[in-house]
């Protein structure tokens, strides 16, 4: 974590090298720690730090600093509402800390298997994103000369952000978690507002107020824990025992909903897509939003069978279904990815809300696979945008001819998101099982209908890429090497994870379940299924080779596709009955008339807002 201060003041030419070095160091240490934790038999380690006075002071100062920063920027851009949320979240906590009312004497740091798994995600995926950003920002400023080059600042922010993520994952003390929570909120706010255009400023403030609202919820939960229940640690919260503990749990879950951009708070994530680079977008999509679901998964056992759990699952399921419908209607590549992120996070939220072992299993698996596939997809979309100056899916028509390398990587990424032998689907399968077992019928319905629409929007994108156009030429692939350094490992990770998932289930997810539920849990997916899955994975890679052999010795006549007129030779024009050449273009279906953003988005937000309000009022009000 100390390494990030290092990078803060680097000059441009040296920068990439330093990022690489620093990045790989962090990654290596993250992997080292994670592997150590995974190998050691007794993974749950609580550390009580004796001399926390200094770090506590730093945390307090940090919170004050963040608050002042938010206030300053809010006044500068005349968005005064953000100040209220910031003050409301920070001052009571400060008062509690400074007057010594906080509960002392518990462990500050916890490193267990779940933390180790999260280390791997943040360490590997997050750092690869930073490395990618170093190359990307150069191209970005090449194209967008009107934006002032502050990429040093941007990359420094990314590392601060990752540092906060590491901190959050390792902390067990609630006030520490709160501190890191606020850092990530403010960092993301600063990153979204990077270009300082009006749109960016507006979107960044939207992200800020939503996340700060969640922060207020968190702060309230923290206060109740400390003052009312005498609890200062997350692990004590999840142990339960006290009936009133459900109140802070609900508040934390509320905070998690804002962070992981569930309806009604999804619009900040969509707004984050205007951010300068995919790197900010994909940091949001692939790593930051994972904090929200991380909290939910931590809280999952205690939510079992409670109203909070039911409401969280319903909100998650609802988000999964509606976001996937919305994803059908947009053609901007990044926006599709954003909606699909929201949708998948909804699924994870729903799984965590069930509070069953299978639910948690599925949730962790989804987190893992989603992080890898989604960051890969964002990176390729970013590269395609740099090469073709567009990230619209319609413009990716015939990508397999134009940019074969990127297209191939993208196909793997998309397949990883929805097709059979790949990881996401396995997790979806487990999710389905857990919903059925916990008897949540509505969720089953949300999930099956949501899978239908998910399939539709991914497959039509895949189709656009796979289209082969005659007389079309390869474009220059200007993806810099530093980006490839990030893309190739991610691609291979997706493929490796396909084969490694039984191992991952046994060695990474199983211990998490043991820790969370304190019982031994039988395998979620049985042995024979695993074998069949493996056969399927093998087949997917065999088909190309097999059909190569089949076509040997066969003479096939090449022809042009049928256009009910004379094909002019390039598949994009035909000669009509008057002998004129006419252009021809097949667009994808978006069905905007039926579930377009303008029709569906605001009703969804309202429905979800009512759900959230009901949850808060009933649970919190009921306890009082």
């Amino acid at each position, binding site marked *: 974590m100390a390494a990030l201060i290092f990078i803060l003041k680097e000059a441009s030419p040296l920068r990439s090298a330093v990022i690489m070095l620093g990045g790989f160091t962090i990654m290596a240490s993250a992997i080292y720690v994670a592997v150590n934790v995974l190998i050691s038999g007794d993974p749950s380690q609580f550390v009580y730090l004796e001399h926390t006075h200094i770090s506590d002071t730093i945390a307090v100062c940090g919170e004050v600093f963040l608050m002042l920063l938010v206030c300053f920027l809010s006044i500068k851009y005349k968005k005064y509402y953000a100040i209220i949320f910031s003050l409301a979240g920070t001052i009571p906590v400060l008062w509690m800390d400074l007057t010594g009312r906080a509960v002392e004497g518990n462990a500050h740091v916890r490193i267990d298997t779940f933390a180790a798994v999260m280390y791997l995600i943040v360490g590997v995926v997050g750092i690869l994103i930073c490395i990618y950003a170093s190359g990307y920002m150069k191209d970005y400023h090449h194209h967008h000369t009107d934006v002032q080059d502050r990429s040093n600042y941007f990359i420094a922010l990314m590392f601060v952000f990752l540092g906060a993520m590491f901190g959050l994952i390792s902390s067990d003390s609630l006030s520490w978690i709160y501190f890191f929570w606020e850092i990530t909120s403010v960092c993301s706010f600063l990153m979204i507002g990077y270009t300082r255009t009006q749109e960016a400023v507006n979107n960044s403030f939207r992200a800020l107020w939503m996340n700060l609202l969640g922060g207020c919820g968190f702060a309230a939960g923290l206060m109740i824990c400390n003052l009312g229940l005498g609890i200062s640690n997350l692990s004590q919260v999840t142990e339960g025992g006290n009936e009133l503990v459900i109140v802070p749990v609900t508040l934390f879950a509320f905070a998690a909903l804002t962070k992981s951009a569930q309806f009604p708070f999804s619009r900040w994530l969509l707004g984050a897509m205007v951010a300068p680079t995919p790197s900010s977008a994909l940091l949001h999509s692939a790593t930051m939003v994972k904090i929200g679901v991380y909290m939910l998964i931590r809280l999952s056992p205690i939510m079992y069978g409670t109203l909070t759990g039911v409401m969280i699952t319903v909100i998650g399921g609802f988000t999964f279904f509606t976001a996937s419908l919305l994803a059908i209607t947009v053609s901007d590549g990044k926006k599709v990815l954003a909606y699909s992120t929201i949708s998948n996070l909804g699924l994870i939220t729903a799984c965590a809300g069930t509070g069953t072992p299978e639910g948690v299993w599925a949730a962790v698996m989804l987190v893992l696979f989603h992080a890898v596939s989604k960051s890969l997809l964002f990176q390729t979309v970013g590269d395609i945008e740099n090469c073709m100056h567009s990230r619209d899916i319609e413009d990716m028509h*015939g990508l*397999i001819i134009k940019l074969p390398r990127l297209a191939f990587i993208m196909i793997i990424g998309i397949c990883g998101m929805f*097709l*059979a*032998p790949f990881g996401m*689907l396995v997790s979806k*399968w487990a999710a*389905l*099982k857990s919903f*059925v077992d916990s*008897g949540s*019928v509505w969720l*089953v*319905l949300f*999930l*099956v*209908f949501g*899978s*239908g*629409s998910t*399939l*539709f929007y991914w*497959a*039509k994108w*895949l*189709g656009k890429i*796979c*289209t*082969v*156009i*005659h007389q079309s030429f390869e474009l220059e692939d200007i993806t810099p090497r530093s980006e490839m350094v990030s893309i190739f490992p991610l691609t291979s990770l997706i493929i490796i994870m396909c084969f490694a998932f039984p191992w991952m289930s046994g060695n990474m997810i199983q211990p998490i379940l043991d820790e969370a539920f304190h019982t031994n849990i039988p395998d979620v997916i049985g042995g*024979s*299924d695993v074998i*069949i899955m493996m056969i*399927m994975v093998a*087949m997917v890679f065999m*088909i*190309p080779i*097999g*059909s190569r052999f*089949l*076509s040997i010795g*066969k*003479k*096939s*006549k*090449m*022809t*042009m*596709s*049928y*256009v*009910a007129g004379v094909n002019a030779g390039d*598949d994009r024009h035909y000669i009509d009955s008057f002998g004129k050449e006419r252009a*021809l273009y*097949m667009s*994808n*279906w978006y*069905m905007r008339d*039926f579930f377009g953003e303008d029709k569906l988005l605001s009703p969804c937000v309202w429905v979800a807002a009512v759900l959230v309000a009901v949850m808060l009022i009933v649970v919190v009000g009921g306890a009082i």
Partner: protein
Amino acid sequence: MEINFIIKAVLYLVLAPLLGGLLSGTDRLFAARMQGRQGPPIIQPFYDVNKLLHKQTTVVNSIQVLFVTGYLIMTVFTGCLFFGGGDMLLVFFALSMSEVLMVMAAFSTNGPYSIMGAQRELLQMMCYEPMTLLVAIGFYYAQGSFMVSDLVKAETPAIIQLPGFFIGFVFILIIKLRKSPFDLSTSHHMHQEMVKGLTTDLSGNNLAFVEIAEWYDTILMMGIVGMFFITANPISRIWALIAVIVVFFIETLIDNIFPRVKYITMLKVTWAVILVFAGTNLLILNVLK
């Protein structure tokens, strides 16, 4: 168990195209008689495919061949998994994988009719995907297992607990077997507004592969229909057979009665039917459980 699995899978591998072809021939005969025509001989589909296999293949691009082959292989695999006694959910996941490969074959050609067909096929998948998954879940609710090999040893036929699921499934079979009113993407009839839709740019060998894959698919679907009736009692197999024949006849009848509908009508109607019948059934099951 392993040996058993392999024997059943191989049996399916060999018998399914024969039965599937015959079913397809019967379908044409039924349809012809309903329209007061003589109709082709029952083994006409085999003549057709044989002819296709001996024709020179014209392809639009080489990727197309890859996808079509993949489609055939995955469909056969799916069927083997089902008849071998595998996991129902996995069967349906593999099935959607194979369908996606077929759609990609059409997409890759860049022909307007093919792409139109592909988009419609995707929409059809979106329509029936919820129901196929629900069928697997329904069986799980009724008998507590996703494994086909366990499901056939049931005490009581699943139809007693899952009538709504059965209706929903028969309904989406109209889409799956490409019957009017839902034969949007490609049709068995010649009166089609967009040439041959999904398969417009396929010919010779490749078209034959698609035909054969559809035979395999038909048998798989009929197998799932039969699953609703099968119990540990051997006599139940006769009931299952009768059910399959009746369902197949009904599908042909529907095909001949209704004209093709618009895609949005299809989406609304199928989702409504699924929600009303299968959804209600699921709710009741959950309450009773």
